[in-house]
């Protein structure tokens, strides 16, 4: 799971105690750009519990993609969401749990959207997991059409652009599909619902 936050900068600035974002004592990957001497914008990644602990902290403010973009653009006009990002360890953990080596990220070495490789690699791994869970492109299209009035490929592109919200939409469905599969169901997307292909029950309203 990933999210944008605005937080204070801690640390004395030494090698032992470098300046770094305050993350509510959670040890998670983080990318930071300084807003001023005391505050920074961060994208952080971790388990849902870790991210909840971070966003629940009174000294940390959770931001949307658009709010994050405004801050990035105000500091670096030629940079965008893709330039402040970290690989999501939760995606790696889900990949491992369905028998996919997260190193498969490295299959992709050239960006197809933007200049950075990270988002293309992450989208690739999400696609492999999705396929392994039995979620097809047609199913993603029915979901995207009903939920957002667009196609699965549009969500795909938004992930490659570095949009956190698109990443979380896909990851949330993958989480639910994995949970359903572990419970013995055969998950499939039917519009904005996750249903079981075998028993026909609605597993989750998405």
């Amino acid at each position, binding site marked *: 799971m990933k999210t944008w936050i605005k937080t204070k900068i801690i640390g004395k600035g030494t090698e032992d105690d470098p300046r770094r974002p305050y993350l509510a004592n959670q040890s998670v990957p*983080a990318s930071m*750009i300084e807003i001023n001497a005391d505050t920074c914008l961060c994208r952080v990644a971790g388990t849902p519990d870790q991210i909840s602990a971070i966003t629940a902290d009174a000294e940390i403010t959770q931001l949307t993609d658009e709010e994050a973009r405004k801050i990035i653009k105000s500091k670096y006009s030629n940079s965008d969401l893709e330039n402040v990002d970290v690989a999501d360890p939760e995606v790696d953990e889900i990949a491992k749990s369905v028998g996919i080596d997260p190193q498969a990220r490295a299959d992709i070495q050239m960006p197809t959207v933007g200049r950075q490789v990270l988002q293309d690699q992450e989208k690739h791994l999400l696609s492999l997991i999705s396929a392994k869970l039995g979620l097809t492109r047609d199913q993603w299209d029915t979901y995207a059409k009903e939920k957002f009035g667009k196609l699965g490929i549009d969500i795909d592109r938004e992930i490659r652009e570095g949009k956190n919200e698109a990443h979380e939409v896909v990851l949330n469905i993958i989480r639910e599909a994995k949970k359903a599969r572990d419970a013995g169901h055969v998950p499939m997307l039917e519009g904005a619902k996750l249903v079981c292909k075998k028993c026909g029950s609605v597993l989750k309203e998405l």
Partner: protein
Amino acid sequence: MTDLKEMMLYSPTYFCAIARADWIPELRTKDEDALAGTIGVAAGISAGTVAAILNHPVIPVSDLASIFDNENLPADKLQAILDDENLSIQRGQEIVDAMTNPGKIGTGGRRGYIGDDWSDNKLTNRDKTVERAPTFDKIFSYFRPEWTVDDSPSGLTITVENRRVKFSKSGSESGTGYIRISSSFTIGAWEWKYQYSTLGSTPGYDGFKFMMVDGSNSYYMGLAGETGYGDLRKVVGGTDSIILDCSLVQDTDEHLVKVTRDSDGNFEVFQDGVSKGTVTDIDITTCNYLSIESSDYRLALDYYVDSLKVY
């Protein structure tokens, strides 16, 4: 024709005249393939004679350039010549250095700025023609450079062993040791392999300062023989900041790290081909050195560095 062969074999001057066949009316209309075949018959010509021919003042450099640009000498033949083991690495490097005009060479991603495989097992007085062929896929302007070595801290020794740089830490803390070269490279990729002999819970900082202005200003990858450690840092005015906490995989396997930076200050860090994160920062835009450092020896271990590529 026998006389012609004799001339080719024993007189570079006449050979040069033949090469400039337009000077000899009777050869001007001679089929080029036939002429090449005739020259080919003179297979006993030594490399030294051929070199003397090519160096002869009767052939202008522009004509020699035309020979190498002529379609009768295909590119794959030229590449075969340049790849042949009889062309020493040193000489090949000098040719590359003379061809630094981007319009001449360097397309296709085969051009690099700094490269070191430490195959000569040295840091200074480098052997650029060491027999072992480099495994690199690039040709570097500065290959096997001369490193400035400071291993004066008492807890540290720096050597090259089995074609890798080895930082041996004794377990006591003391000062900063390094190997360092001049570098003005600020846009592109820095890539190297590293390995730890063991891991522990006590940090032992190993800064790879890929863009170093001076002791108080740099971008570097902070590595350590500590599980889960690894981040992209900057030091500005002596103040150290983590700008990208990458959580690199840390174990005792060898890993390949790559850092890229573009002209807008966009960084990306890879480990073994997997992107670990991106960040933007423009506080430092110049570079004087590339410095591979070790500044904490509380954990006794060996830290190895290999296969440096800057491109």
